[in-house]
């Protein structure tokens, strides 16, 4: 058989996904995080069990609606976070997941690697449920484009990498290409970062 579009690791995690939430009751988990939506074609939910003393993740289950790379990337993430402290897990980026997967085709990166965002939402949920809201502020940059989960941080990076117009920002981040409702807000954030860094 000729080469697959994805790496062997992606193929393995897609065909044999690990840690899927199947029969367990979601209410038995200590935290839940959701990202993406059906309209965009990718959605995922991450469920965490947390050791309340050590604040480490003892179990991570998930459900994903999406393409092969969305399924594989959530599966991979669920393996990566077991035993991690919440703070360490919150620092996982989509690049970390990509590296563990052995890479993905370029056009797949932005739309399908959403697991880190769902995980961060779950971690925030845990903090919120346990009166540790103060920890949330240091984590989780604000999401501007909810379809593709593009954050303010992502926009700032794109500006630092050379994006100056909305079109250039879109080329780099795919922002606003789902439902398109965030375009005005994205333009505002883009302008503010260009001013901040380049004093335009």
């Amino acid at each position: 058989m000729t080469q697959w579009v994805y790496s062997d690791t992606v193929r393995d995690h897609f065909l044999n996904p690990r840690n899927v939430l199947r029969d367990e009751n979601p209410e038995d988990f200590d935290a839940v995080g959701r990202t993406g939506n059906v309209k965009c074609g990718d959605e995922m939910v991450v469920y965490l069990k947390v050791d309340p003393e050590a604040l480490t993740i003892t179990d991570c289950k998930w459900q994903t609606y999406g393409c092969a790379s969305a399924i594989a990337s959530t599966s991979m993430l669920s393996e990566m976070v077991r035993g991690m402290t919440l703070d360490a897990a919150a620092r996982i980026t989509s690049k970390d997941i990509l590296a563990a997967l052995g890479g993905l085709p370029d056009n797949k990166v932005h739309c399908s690697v959403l697991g880190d965002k769902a995980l961060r939402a779950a971690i925030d949920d845990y903090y919120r449920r346990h009166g540790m809201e103060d920890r949330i502020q240091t984590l989780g940059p604000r999401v501007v484009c909810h379809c593709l989960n593009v954050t303010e941080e992502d926009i700032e990076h794109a500006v630092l990498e050379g994006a100056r117009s909305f079109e250039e920002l879109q080329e780099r981040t795919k922002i606003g290409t789902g439902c398109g409702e965030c375009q005005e807000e994205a333009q505002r954030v883009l302008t503010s970062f260009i001013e901040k860094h380049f004093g335009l």
Partner: protein
Amino acid sequence: MPQPIYLDHNATTPLHPEVKRVMVEMLDVFGNPSSLHAFGREARARVEAARAQVAALVNADPVEVIFTGSGSEGNNTVLSLVRCTKTACRCDLGTRKGLVTTAIEHPCVLETAKYLRRLGHPVTILGVDRSGRIDLDELRAAVTPEVGLVSIMTANNETGTIQDIPEAARIAHEAGALFHTDAVQAVGKIPVDVRAWDVDFLTLSAHKIYGPKGVGALVARRGTPLCPLILGGHQEAGRRAGTENTIGIAAMGEAARMRLVEMDTEAPRLAALRDRLRQGIEAAIPDVTFNGHPEHTLPSTLNVSFMGVEGEAILLHLDAVGIAVSTGSACASGSLDPSHVIMALGVPVEYAHGSIRISLGRETTEEHIDTMLRELPPIIANLRSISSAYRR
């Protein structure tokens, strides 16, 4: 793994064994059809024989058949009429600078239409209903005196839905416009008749009818204007420059001949297999919706959406068990929207990303359909079991 099963005939078809035989034979017919000597005459004879064979498949006159490099080239050639600058032709649509087409055309028509719009031409893109058909009254209203050309595909590649081409052509002609149909998916699957339908232009492609890639044909009826897209040669009566693709053309001729031989018995056989597939899917899998028209459809195409699962994931699971289909989902194309056809049909959002197209062909057997019906339900059940978007 058992022998792979190919259910993606609308994407392309394997070579017919007879076509392959002709191609091998043609490897030694190297003459340039324009040469006057014996080598040239031999090649010319093969090209002209093929022209007659292709003409016969769509009931055209052989002189009306122009060989091209692809279906896309044929479609681009016809649409270029609208922006004719009369550098290489005498055609003149006068003040009729407008184009009317539909939202479900192949991108080679749709993108060309948008290009014409950017050039300043009035372009109307008609929508379709949930079954994928245009509204003929809407068409009638759209063909204003400024419209020079109407282009409507015969059968859609994704859904198989067939338009009422004879009526659409009549509406265009009554309003004084020329009529083109992209029949790439219809030719060889259903009877196509340029005279009975009274169309001015019709596009065909060889690789959809068990011929090779890289060759197509455009039928331009006698007396209709035509702007060549490729200038600088007398070939194809000055309508398409470039030394003829003799191997491809002879192969296309043979492919057309075999379609006439096989189509009549094949169509009902495939329609029965398609119905068996549809009923099997309906019986085994809940929450499915079929995209396309129940009657006005190609016998060999089935487009189905599954709630709460994504098309590329279905495609790759099927591929892993040796079954080839295609999907209109966004992820497979690398864009974020489902295909423009699925969007135009207004497929509900929870189904829109979960469509697959199953297209049968001359080598499809009952066993293939049974294997598909055995493999597909557990794949859908499995993907739904991990999906956050499927309501259990």
